[in-house]
């Protein structure tokens, strides 16, 4: 027959083959035509090397506990400080593992590339063959993370392990790594089984969140109550080759069973779920690759609000600028879980200090306080961030840019202040810091640190093509400079408090100094930013 397109050919006449295509041949087709430059390969290789260097730096200190600590313990040198460090460290490993598992579930865990999900998923190709590689990748990454978690957990228990030799037996290390990999893989595979069932997916995520929360609370409690500390360290001391062997065999068997169930389910894995998850994972990876925080934030927000029904409320009878800022307050009021997580995060400074450096106070706690306060402040800057790209709403309401910025500064300042107050109160409660002025100091420091959050929110999205100035360290992209400067602003804004935390000394003079610094930093930033046209 003939159409406008010309003679229509039957498929058989167009050079088609009689045999169905395999996923392998399709991937070969795509790979053979993909133009990947040497620069791309170099960039990927460079990123991997840099990642390994950072990881080794981070893990050197904890892993050093694996060597030579048994002798020290035998000599009775394992102090109470080392005990709290071991408990906190082990809890942190559990919490991080739970967090990684939640992250894996947020991305699927099984997902294909967005292009594959569009062109190959809804096709006659075998679903199992198509998902084989992404599943293997997830399993590989899961096993790697599990090995790291297993070894780290053993390292945290280092001073209390009773292996009877100077050096840690290699078998213990291997069994611990295998146990970690087995447990991690079993949970990741369980996540894959739950992926098509929204209710189970939510439950599994809630379980991981609960484990993380319990670990954090347990670690802090371990620092406070020696009974718990003794119980945990006694548990470490009972570790034996047999116990580790049983754990390793059990976890591997469990992972194998759940993995087999996943393998069986791959053939009928629902395309709809895969398409949604693959699109989300693709966007998130792209945003992460370019450090595009606004896009990552948008993905998280979209993921949260999609499909929800919200009760509409009347716009409040406030001055225009305040009414504009009210959107941030309402958004946060609709996310009580987020506020709860932020409040729970106030425990991290106490935990991090004990687990990483073993010191009750110091720069580790100061750094986590600064980072936590900035993060808390950022949760009140959603509309400020949006206005950086699109000022339509502000213009529509006829609000002056400076007035809008002033009105919107209140929430991040309050959030940072509240978070610092809570974190410092918990540091006092757990005995890390001493004195009753700490909560007041935290509240006063909040607005100063919030200037950093506001500055970050107003930073333009990252343009990867922008090379930036050539500094002594080489070409430095503007987004990096801008975000680093925001942290410096936060550092200055909270300096009196951070210095006091480092020294574990708080005086009324320090409060006055912090009050002045907060007023100058936040006020100065608002004055300068209000005069800069966006």
């Amino acid at each position, binding site marked *: *027959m003939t*159409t*406008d*397109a*010309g*003679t*229509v*050919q*039957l*498929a*058989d006449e*167009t*050079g*088609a*083959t*009689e*045999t*169905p*295509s395999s996923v392998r*041949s*399709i991937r070969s*087709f*795509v790979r053979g*035509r*993909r*133009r*990947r430059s040497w620069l791309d390969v170099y960039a990927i290789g460079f990123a991997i090397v840099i990642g390994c260097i950072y990881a080794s730096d981070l893990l050197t200190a904890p892993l050093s506990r694996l060597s030579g600590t048994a002798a020290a313990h035998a000599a009775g040198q394992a102090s109470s400080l080392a005990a709290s460090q071991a408990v906190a460290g082990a809890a942190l490993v559990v919490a991080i593992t739970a967090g990684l598992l939640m992250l894996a579930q947020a991305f699927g865990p099984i997902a294909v*590339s*967005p*292009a594959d*999900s*569009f*062109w*190959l998923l*809804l*096709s*006659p*190709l*075998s*679903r199992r063959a198509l998902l084989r590689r992404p599943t293997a990748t997830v399993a590989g990454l899961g096993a790697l993370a599990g090995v790291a978690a297993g070894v780290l957990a053993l390292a945290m228990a280092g001073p209390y392990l009773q292996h009877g030799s100077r050096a840690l037996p290699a078998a213990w290390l291997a069994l611990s790594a295998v146990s970690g990999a087995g447990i991690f893989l079993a949970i990741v595979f369980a996540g894959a089984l739950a992926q098509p069932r929204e209710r189970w997916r939510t439950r599994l995520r809630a379980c991981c969140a609960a484990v993380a929360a319990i670990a954090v609370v347990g670690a802090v409690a371990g620092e406070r109550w020696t009974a718990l500390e003794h119980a945990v360290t006694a548990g470490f001391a009972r570790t034996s080759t047999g116990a580790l062997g049983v754990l390793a065999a059990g976890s591997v068997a469990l992972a194998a069973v759940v993995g087999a169930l996943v393998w069986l389910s791959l053939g*009928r894995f*629902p*395309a*709809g779920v895969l*398409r949604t998850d693959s*699109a989300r994972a*693709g966007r998130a990876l792209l945003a992460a690759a370019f450090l595009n925080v606004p896009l990552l934030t948008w993905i998280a927000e979209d993921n949260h609000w999609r*499909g*929800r*029904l919200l009760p509409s409320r009347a716009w409040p009878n406030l001055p225009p600028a305040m009414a504009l800022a009210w959107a941030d307050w309402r958004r946060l009021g609709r996310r009580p879980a987020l506020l709860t997580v932020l409040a729970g995060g106030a425990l991290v400074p106490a935990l991090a200090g004990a687990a990483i450096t073993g010191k009750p106070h110091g720069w580790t706690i100061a750094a986590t306080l600064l980072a936590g306060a900035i993060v808390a402040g950022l949760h009140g800057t959603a509309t400020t961030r949006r206005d950086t790209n699109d000022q339509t709403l502000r213009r529509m309401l006829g609000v002056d840019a400076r007035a809008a910025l002033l009105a919107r500064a209140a929430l991040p300042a309050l959030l940072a202040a509240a978070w610092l107050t809570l974190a410092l109160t918990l540091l006092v409660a757990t005995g890390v810091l001493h004195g009753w002025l700490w909560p007041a100091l935290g509240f006063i420091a909040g607005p100063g640190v919030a200037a950093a959050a506001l500055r970050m929110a107003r930073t333009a999205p990252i343009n990867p093509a922008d090379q930036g100035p050539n500094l002594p360290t080489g070409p430095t992209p503007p987004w990096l400079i801008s975000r680093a400067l925001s942290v410096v602003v936060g550092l200055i804004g909270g300096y009196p408090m951070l210095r006091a935390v480092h020294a574990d000394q708080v005086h009324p003079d320090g409060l006055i100094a912090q009050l002045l610094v907060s007023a100058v930093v936040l006020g100065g930033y608002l004055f300068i930013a209000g005069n800069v046209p966006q």
Partner: protein
Amino acid sequence: MSADATVVAVRGLRVGYGSVVVLADIELTVTAGEIIAVTGVNGVGKSTLLTCLAGLHRPAAGTMSVLGGAPRDDPAFWRAVALVADQPTWYPGLTVREHLELIRLTHQPLRGWCLPADELIDFFGLAARADASPLDMSSGQRQRLSLAAALARPSRLLLLDEPEQSLDADFRVELAGLLREGYADNGGTVIMATHDADFALAAGAREVRLSDGAIVPDDEDYEDATDEADEADDADDVDGSDDADPTDEADDVNGSDDEYGTGDAEDADDIQDPGAWTAHAARHTRPRA
């Protein structure tokens, strides 16, 4: 019509997102070779109906039969069903031609009506961009490529979500012709969600109008249309406006409102009639008072 010719049979379909009911009690039968235009206002559930038929969204209640069985989400189903919805994600580094070749390779062996890559490139006006990456093309050209990809492989049911998006008016007519004379006349069935009455008319489509989550019965369709037209006429009378009224023009073309809603067979005839379609479209695109 024989039972064997039924491609899609939907009975009592009910679909929701959480507590929000989007579609309720949908009854629809589509036979081989038909082109169906699912119309309705934004958010009425047109795309949801398509994703349900593709098996990507599970309905809360009701039964669906697509090509003789429930949507199965297996290789055999996707060999027979092609879906063009959402904006595709393209392979970075693959050209337009390579994307089409990839589709044909994926659906081997190609048994049934489809067009070779070269003809598709010519027909869809992509010859000058055949060796370009889709990422470098305009939104309209990308939409053309998405539709071309659906016709590069054989299928028995084509599900299109607003295929007219970003396409220029002339090409919409050409595309409608290809769907009618190329795809449907070779036994293929098309179900498309669309807002373009002219496009649906050119494709010779039967209209299925959704309103408030349900298919509007033909007689109710007529009453709504008449009411809306009367209200609009009254409004014109009140303000004394002499502005051209598309409904009036439609009435002139159509001759009489009575051509609507006089029964299934007559209504089907009306839909095939260009005058009827124009009038129909004019009524349904008129804003509510």
